[in-house]
């Protein structure tokens, strides 16, 4: 510990960590506060319109329940408090769903479609800064750890005085990691805590989420610190170490992630949403024709042994609507269930693509822990669909169970509208996130383990 403290004091005497810390703080602060402002505004808007939608639903005029089903409402994806740190898939997925009769609507209006064309350079969020700039910070902190001493000749002195290379390496690594943890971890914890306190964190298990998320970011930083130290161990000059470490940064943080997208496309091609929708449309279209409706009516009458709809103990229109909806549910479940499963599989493949680049591993791990991954989005979409089906079932049952004779239409009122509870989406629990994060976490751990293993021979061969 004394050695770590001494190395830490030595590192702190250098102006570099202070400069790095100041730049990081500035970048993280600007990105974090910008994201917080957007999240707080969105959360306030969602709260206001959700209350307005509920009031509109309850305040409907008396009308046929099927008209109320068509009237429907909009539901909105809640903000994950840690989206301020890592928006994850959020900007690329729809945030609001129109809940209405017959239709499994897409979640629409993605933040990315409203973003300017220049904002997609991968530098806009706290997570992007951690992904791109923190490795640079780690490299700038660590590149000179041994190479500068070698250049000055102080490494010869240290080794000559009996300093053991392993301890020297471990002490420097621990000191720089502590410095990095202070420069990166503390601002992230502060931003996350602030976001949790101000955006609303009910059900999100923010405390443990934030702790695990920050640990993942530090593990990522440690990977690049190790890379910088390992290069520094063998480089002749500090400048040579810096140049090599920068080349590795470009390779791992800029080039490899794009290559990973190409690789994943080959290994796990994206399912086509357009084709899934076309199959759904074709199936439902065949079910909607006049001939199909006629056959359905005749089958229903035969089932009840009736020759006229007025002889039925139930309302024919309500009965056929329920049957039609159940058919549509099955089609949606089959086609969109397969589509969502395909996308989830592709996201999992990205976790393993983390073996190609720690940045890819971190992206998959970070968004899962922050609660902004695809699984959370799919959970919201299906929760909205379950809510829609609940409304349709209730409205159609009301029609079916109150048969109207002679072409009259059933008219329902506020009592029926009140029977529909408000939409209260709950996030997936952290335990599910931790299970989903196993792949990318393992990939990141493998990077750390491989670099640690590589350090053993390099430390052993350390020459002044």
């Amino acid at each position, binding site marked *: 510990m004394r050695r770590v403290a001494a190395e830490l004091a030595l590192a702190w005497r250098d102006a570099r960590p202070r400069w790095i810390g100041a730049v990081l703080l500035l970048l993280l602060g600007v990105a974090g506060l910008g994201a917080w402002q957007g999240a707080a505004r969105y959360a306030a808007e969602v709260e206001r319109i959700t209350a307005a939608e509920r009031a509109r639903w309850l305040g409907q005029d008396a009308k046929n329940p099927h008209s109320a089903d068509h009237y429907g409402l909009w539901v909105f994806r809640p903000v994950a408090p840690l989206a301020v740190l890592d928006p994850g898939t959020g900007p690329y997925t729809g945030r609001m769903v129109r809940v209405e009769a017959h239709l499994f609507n897409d979640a629409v209006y993605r933040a990315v479609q409203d973003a300017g064309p*220049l904002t997609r350079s991968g530098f806009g969020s706290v997570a992007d800064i951690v992904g791109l700039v923190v490795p640079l910070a780690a490299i700038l902190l660590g590149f000179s750890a041994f190479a500068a001493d070698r250049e000055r000749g102080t490494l010869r002195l240290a080794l000559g005085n009996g300093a053991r290379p392993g301890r020297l390496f471990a002490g420097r690594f621990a000191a720089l990691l502590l410095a990095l943890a202070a420069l990166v971890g503390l601002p992230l914890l502060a931003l996350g805590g602030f976001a949790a306190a101000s955006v609303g964190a009910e059900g999100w298990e923010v405390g443990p989420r934030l702790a695990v998320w920050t640990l993942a970011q530090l593990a990522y930083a440690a990977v690049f610190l190790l890379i910088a130290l390992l290069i520094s161990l063998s480089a002749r000059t500090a400048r040579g170490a810096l140049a090599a470490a920068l080349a590795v940064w470009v390779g791992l943080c800029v080039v490899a992630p794009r290559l990973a*997208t190409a690789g994943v496309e080959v290994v796990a091609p994206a399912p086509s949403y357009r084709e899934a929708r076309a199959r759904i449309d074709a199936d439902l279209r065949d079910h909607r024709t006049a001939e199909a409706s006629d056959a359905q009516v005749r089958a229903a009458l035969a089932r009840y042994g009736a020759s006229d709809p007025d002889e039925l103990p139930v309302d024919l229109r309500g009965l056929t609507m329920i049957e039609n909806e159940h058919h549509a549910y099955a089609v949606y479940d089959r086609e969109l269930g397969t589509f969502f499963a395909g996308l989830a599989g592709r996201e999992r493949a990205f976790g393993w693509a983390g073996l190609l680049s720690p940045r890819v591993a971190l992206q998959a791990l970070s968004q899962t822990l922050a609660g902004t991954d695809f699984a959370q989005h799919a959970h919201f979409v299906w929760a909205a669909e379950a809510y829609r089906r609940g409304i349709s079932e209730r409205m159609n049952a009301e029609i079916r169970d109150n048969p109207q004779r002679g072409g009259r239409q059933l008219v329902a009122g506020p009592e029926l509208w009140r029977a529909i509870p408000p939409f209260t989406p709950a996030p997936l629990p952290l335990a599910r996130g931790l299970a989903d994060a196993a792949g990318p976490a393992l990939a990141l751990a493998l990077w750390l383990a491989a670099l640690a293993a590589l350090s053993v021979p390099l430390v052993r061969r350390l020459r002044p």
Partner: protein
Amino acid sequence: MSAPRFHRLLRAELRLLLREPLTWAILAMLAAALCLGARIGAERVAAERAAIAAAAGDSTRAVDAAKAARARYAQPGPLRVAYWQDPTHAFGYMHYFLAAYAVKPPTPLAALAVGQADVQPALTRVSFGFSTVFDDTAYEPGSAATLRLGPFDLAFVLVHLVPLAVIALAGTRLSAEADAGILRLIAAQPVSPRAVAGAKFGAAALVAVGAVLGGTALALAVTGALGPLAGWGTTGAGLAAALAAYTLFWVAACALAASLWRGAVAALTLLVLAWACLVVALPAALGLVVDGLAPVPSRIAAIDASREAQDRFYTGEAGPRIVAAWLAARAPEAEAKDPPALRDAPEIKRLARDAFYDAALAGHRDALQARADAAAAWSARLAPLSPATALALALETAAGTDAGRHAAFLAAVSEHRRRLRAFFEPRILAQALRPAPVCAGCQARLDFDAYDAVPAFPAVLPAEAAARQALLGAACLLAAALALAALAYRRLGAWPA
């Protein structure tokens, strides 16, 4: 130094450069990256063309299905065909049969850049429902991880990787000689530092420009990524000039870094950091500026407005009044018929309601369209501030995947929706005013069959905009390259002490 001597020096440097294995390794990696980028672009364009063909097929299928149903129902029978199942009912056809698509066809150079194409759809089905508050509602959900990391397309290779290849190729010229002590020997010869630097960086520029232009052309040819280029010659030439200027800019940056005389490693470090700033950080900063200059109007406020309008229509007596007013304005002759029955007709109520919604949402839609136009315009204005964004915008505009084209596409979709409504509305009204059956006892109305007369979406290829942006990008990049080269030339007036 005389021109022949300089040419001899240049040829010698060229020979030296081409003899280095590192040069060929860099060029091979660049060629591989270009081929991969072109192939990914070609696959995306092929998928886009297939989707557009499928949409055209769907439109044809819808017309064929309507014609077949019309033939089926054109005879007396017991079958009851509701209006929404009847393709000979103009309103039924418009809402439940018509498959009208607005398409943004790929340009011949579409494989160059994914641009906004991975987040903004190349085709959209024109919808008349009020669920779609905006015309850009439909999209194709895909892998968010892919979108977040970005595609490995030609634009990525040209904008991000070409500078790195140039830095690897030319970043240590002159400064490596200084580190090795050879510079003293060179300086002892009767040759100026400008001539030496000119020959070294000139050779690197020749190799880099040749490799980038040749490699790109080869990659596009090998992968079959190019479409028919008739009418796109100026754009192609402009892009080639922009690409050459961009490469020269980075060669000039290498010369400038060498002129600092701080050694090879410092030059490399400086160049990589300059690359990070110009290619990654500056575009992001410009993006923030664009977002500040063209703030996004609230989608939720528009949804709220749509729901308020819906609420107004369906609550109390407002709805019937709106329908009556709409009917009186569109069909004054309706007063002579049976107005209450007409006002209760589902198609009349629906048309009146949609017109009411359109009016209620016009402000929100206009604001969003104005914002899309403003964001595209500001991006185009600010793009020349960074060489990377200048080239990227030129590539995206040539590929037809830029934000400006999409903003224009959305405006065209709105216009097409209005055009289709204008086509169907008088026909629906006419049917409502004359409900007499064409054929007694037939199962359907049978008085609408103008399926082939429905207006098609006028798809456009933005050849002029692409040519303009390519030439503008080339001019900006050439100016930047010349400025850097002039700076380096000035600093290389004397050998270091």
